[in-house]
């Protein structure tokens, strides 16, 4: 009887202790949870709700329109065009900046004394403000005043109005995108390269894979798998968000050939004040980013981590 009482008392005090611990735990998470709710979840929910309305910025009245914004969006020529342009832009920037970033990282990695200098030089574009740099690029590629035009003219290649030519405008913007991303990707690849054990190259030497290409294909590239995946995902998301250069240099011209998703979204939302359709586009944008992130998390991640 006393024994049973004692056990009862012990488990009662144990329960009290567990409750206290749980309460302390919740108390510790609450601030972070509130911040996440207020700063991340709430805005998305608001955008989601807005996308179901015909709300106009500054308007006093609005009404639910259901999925009308979405169906309009899917039938909207401008939206589809900007989506297509964005994909083309991403398709140029991602391979370009990943391959160049890797190439530069490998070349810089093999320097000993000048490594820090090269790293700094290639990283500089990352630290600049893209808006300001867009002005510089605009001048550099200006068909009448730009030094690059003078150069191509002097070389007998003729003149290029990169930002005025419907076929060249996305390529021009992509070049700026690549220019800005290479340094960042280089740093990530350098970190990945440093993490490859030297022993593996020694083993490859002895096994007979001692040429530069063999070493790269058999050791470096497979070992860089996780880094490459990470670089591709972050680059894709960054490229998907292209906005600054378009807003400063081309404003979607010529003939809408440089309309990209975020710029169109900006125009619809903040020039035409149509918050409903703009919110629907935002949701579409979020879905694309989410898909890319999920692809990393679930599909490829497991296969590339050793």
């Amino acid at each position, binding site marked *: 009887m006393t024994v049973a009482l004692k056990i009862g008392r012990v488990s009662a005090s144990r329960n009290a202790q567990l409750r206290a611990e749980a309460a302390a735990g919740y108390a510790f998470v609450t601030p972070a949870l509130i911040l996440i709710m207020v700063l991340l979840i709430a805005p998305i929910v608001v955008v989601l709700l807005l996308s179901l309305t015909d709300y106009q910025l500054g308007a006093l009245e609005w009404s639910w329109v259901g999925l009308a914004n979405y169906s309009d969006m899917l039938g909207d020529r401008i939206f589809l065009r900007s989506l297509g342009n964005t994909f083309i832009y991403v398709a140029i920037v991602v391979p370009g900046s990943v391959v160049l970033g890797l190439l530069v990282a490998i070349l810089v990695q093999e320097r000993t004394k000048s490594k820090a200098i090269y790293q700094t030089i290639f990283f500089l574009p990352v630290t600049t403000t893209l808006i300001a740099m867009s002005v510089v690029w605009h001048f550099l590629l200006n068909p009448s005043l730009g030094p690059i035009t003078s150069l191509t003219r002097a070389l007998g290649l003729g003149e290029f109005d990169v930002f005025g030519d419907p076929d060249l405008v996305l390529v021009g913007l992509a070049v700026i995108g690549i220019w800005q991303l290479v340094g960042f990707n280089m740093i990530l690849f350098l970190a990945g390269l440093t993490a490859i*054990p030297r*022993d*593996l190259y*020694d*083993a490859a*030497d*002895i*096994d*007979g*894979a*001692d040429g530069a290409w*063999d070493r790269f294909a*058999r*050791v470096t590239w*497979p*070992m860089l*798998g996780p880094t490459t995946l990470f670089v591709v995902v972050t680059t894709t998301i960054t490229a998907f968000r292209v906005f600054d250069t378009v807003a400063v240099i081309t404003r979607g011209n010529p003939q809408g050939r440089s309309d990209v998703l975020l710029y169109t979204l900006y125009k619809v939302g903040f020039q035409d004040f149509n918050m409903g359709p703009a919110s629907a586009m935002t949701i579409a944008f979020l879905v694309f980013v989410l898909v890319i992130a999920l692809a990393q998390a679930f599909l490829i991640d497991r296969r590339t981590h*050793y």
Partner: protein
Amino acid sequence: MSGLSFNDVSKRFGTSTVVDRFTLDVAEGEFVALVGPSGCGKTTSLRILAGLEEASAGQLLVGARDVTELPARDRNLAMVFQSYALYPHMTAAQNIGFALSLQGLDKVTITDRVQRAADRLAIGHLLERRPKELSGGQRQRVAVARCIVREPAAFLFDEPLSNLDAKLRGTARVEIARLQKTLGITTLYVTHDQVEAMTMADRVVLMDAGRIRQIGTPMQLYHHPVDLFVATFLGSPAMNLLAGEVRHDRGEVRFSAPGLDLRLPETTHCAPGPVTLGLRPEALERMPTAPDRIALTGVVDHVEHLGAETLVQFAVQGSRDASMTARIPGGWPVRAGAPVTLSAAHVALHLFDATGSAVALHFAGSARASVGQRVPA
């Protein structure tokens, strides 16, 4: 399969010499261990032979072939790394067969040879696993299989057991030694572990600061160390040392240290002067003193019962800070604080002059080999 030779091989980095005129001949089928403290140049020597480092001077032979200028892949040597250096993105089978596939052999031959190598190391059932799915011991076996599958001229091992736990290291040691004997393949084995060197190798090369201190069979190094470094590096617990002086007194050679005066064998070839007397822990025995023995008296300081044997640390009487360790059979009762008298046979003594070089205590054909055995009183 063939022998290996280093002829006057040196390696310099800037002004520091890491390997200094290294000369060694490894006979065909021989197992030679390179041992020494870290930074002694043993791994660098091995890497030079493998072709992973360039020698600053000297010549390297594999069999009769001069490989000094050849790239690693053409030297026909296989190596097991300390980290095993398995390719993490390949399965065990791909790791083992990598060199063969680079040689352009056909798939059937590769699969067959990989399977045979894996079976020999009892990892045949693990071939489809990646390194991260293997235990440390299994990885080590994959690394060894990767070597034997190539049927190279020689095996090079760079501290292959140092990443294993103590128990596994014991088994792996026996397995590698046995495998080497079965295959009869020339082997150069780098280790900092004297037990590995002593138990596995036909001959041991003891290095320090880039130079070879002594080459010989494990027993030669243990019983006839050429200097203090070799004497103290090998053996655990380490050799007991007593600093003192040799003097010649009425036809006798005597060793004296503060509070001690011992008679050394007449055959000792030592000029009077400062010396160090060395005694292995097992040389100190509970035996009555005799003309061909020296006796040491002291007070037991600390006792370690290891079961089969007991380590007794005692302070030598008269000598202020001379502490010695004796290894005596486990059955004998010893207590801390008790007085103790131990004696050592003359044949078990080591004497080193002021420069640390060993002094001959006996004429040629010495009975040093009988150390550890009971010498009839």
